[in-house]
């Protein structure tokens, strides 16, 4: 895989977020959803934002990609993706989306247009990155991508519609679509929370394998400490729009400093008795 276009020096973070603040202008007044968070993601590393629903973790992810509705969210601080400040320059955000950074969405069942074929939507993503390819080449590449995310008999699935797939398969297809842009950074917004426990394991496995192979950087959003523990290099624990604790994954799980983190850990009862040989996701399947 030599798909990587080298972006700056290797010590420059793929994603550099400084004092990001997101305020939502709602009918009920201004709500501060994200209150000054800073973090970085580098090549080959997975950084996880963990918190309960409403903690602002998904808003952070969508804000970083500038996917929040313009009329709703006011963003301040700085977000640099591969060196380009996407908050200062909306064009930069458009330029990096689908090329430098891709999103794996929360609910695979609603994330694909129901009236367009999977091949069409995957093909679109490929063509955006490689406008020079012919239809047949796009298709070949798409089928190869589907194979890479372990869709069986990918060539027969090209003309199928989203409703003909299960949730787990759709999430794999969405990962394939995200990879079509050959990104350096993946933003995974609760990629497994809408899936069954057994399917969750497969999808996480696939993501980790891809990362190992391509050295992609990953920003993972989850509410599930089991998932966070499994995939992360570093964890930021988020509550009410702020980080209450940050650090290496091992440290956060083994020696949580903040009371909130301890509460989160206590909320996953089996985690204490976690064993290296047991399948991880069991503890998470609540």
């Amino acid at each position, binding site marked *: 895989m030599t798909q990587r276009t080298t972006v700056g020096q290797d010590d420059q973070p793929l994603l550099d977020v400084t004092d990001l603040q997101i305020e939502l202008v709602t009918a009920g007044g201004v709500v501060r959803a994200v209150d000054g968070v800073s973090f970085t993601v580098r090549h080959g590393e997975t950084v996880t934002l963990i918190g309960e629903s409403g903690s602002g973790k998904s808003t952070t992810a*969508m804000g970083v*990609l500038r*996917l929040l*509705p313009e009329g709703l969210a006011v963003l301040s601080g700085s977000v640099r993706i591969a060196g380009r400040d996407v908050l200062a320059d909306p064009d930069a955000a*458009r330029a990096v*989306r*689908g*090329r430098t950074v*891709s*999103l794996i*969405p*929360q*609910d695979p069942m*609603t*994330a*694909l*247009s*129901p*009236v*367009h*074929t999977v091949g069409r*939507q995957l093909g*679109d*993503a490929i063509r*955006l990155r490689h406008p020079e390819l012919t239809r047949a080449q796009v298709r070949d590449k798409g089928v190869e991508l589907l194979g890479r995310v372990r869709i069986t008999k990918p060539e027969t699935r090209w003309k199928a*519609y989203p*409703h*003909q*797939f*299960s949730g787990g398969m759709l999430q794999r297809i*969405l990962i394939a*679509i*995200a990879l*079509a*842009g050959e990104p350096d950074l993946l*933003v995974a917004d609760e990629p497994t929370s809408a899936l069954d426990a057994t399917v969750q394991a497969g999808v996480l496995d696939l993501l980790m394998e891809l990362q190992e192979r391509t050295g992609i950087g990953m920003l993972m959003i989850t509410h599930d400490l089991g998932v966070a523990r499994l995939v992360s290099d570093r964890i930021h624990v988020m509550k009410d729009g702020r980080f209450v604790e940050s650090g290496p994954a091992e440290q956060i799980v083994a020696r949580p400093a903040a009371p909130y983190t301890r509460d989160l850990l206590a909320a996953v009862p089996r985690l204490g008795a976690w064993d290296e040989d047991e399948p991880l996701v069991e503890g998470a399947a609540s």
Partner: protein
Amino acid sequence: MPTYLARRLGQSLLTVFLTLTTVFLLVRLAPGDPAAAYAPPSASSADLARIRAEFGLDDPLFTQYGIFLRDLFTGNLGTSYSFHAPAFDVVMDRMPYTVTLAVAALAVTTLVAVPLGVWMARRADTKRELGANVMTIAGQSMPDFWTGVMLLTVFAVLFPVLPASGFTTWSGLVLPTLTVAVLQLALVSRLVRREMVSALTSPYVTVARSRGVSEHALTWRYALGNSAVPLVTALGTRFAALLNGVVVVEVVFGWPGVGSLVVRALETRDYPLIQATVLVTATLAILVQLLVDLAYPLLDPRVRLGKAA
């Protein structure tokens, strides 16, 4: 698919049947003697009795209903009092004019309302959109006969650039079409706006945006593609409502279609003709609705391929 087709066809037949029965009951239950309407004013009571016997008006209701249905199947909708010709033929003579007007209005509506609605959805609640929004509300609030008379006054009387009435040249089609289209345009563009606003905020659009799909493609391909089913449904349903507008507008412009026919039949109390007009136009509207419903599978793969997971 075949079950969908069969069920849909059955529903249409049932609707036609319900309509026929309603019309039959209305005509038979109405006060007044149909024979008196048919006979000349000078007719004696013996004449009336003879007419009643001739038309089977003295038979029990159920027998009359049977005869009514049998006649329908043979295309016999009675004889028009004023035209002294089979009512069905009189209606069918006028039908092409009405259909022309309806199709022209529907085409104009679609061509203008879809881009307008998409624009309003993308600019939702800006000052200019608010202005356009109020204009569409005004458009759906004007009585269509009044719009017609106004257009007529301006473009045929004050500035005589278009013919005022009748159908002699194709330019005669312009004003009636516009009049019918104003109301439909307002309604359809508001519907497009509503559908597009919800489509543009749906997850699949956000996810597509996240992978770099252009705003143009998001709007016209993703959002509009997904709004197509509700839009076509609405346009199909609108066809019936559009025929209402056509009736009124035909009267304003002296358009020789079934609308002006039915109003004339009303003045002359020509019941067989009114009845025939109602039945024929109702059947036409139901047919259009059926065609639209049969088009669903082309637009929505979930209907075409079943909901299987």
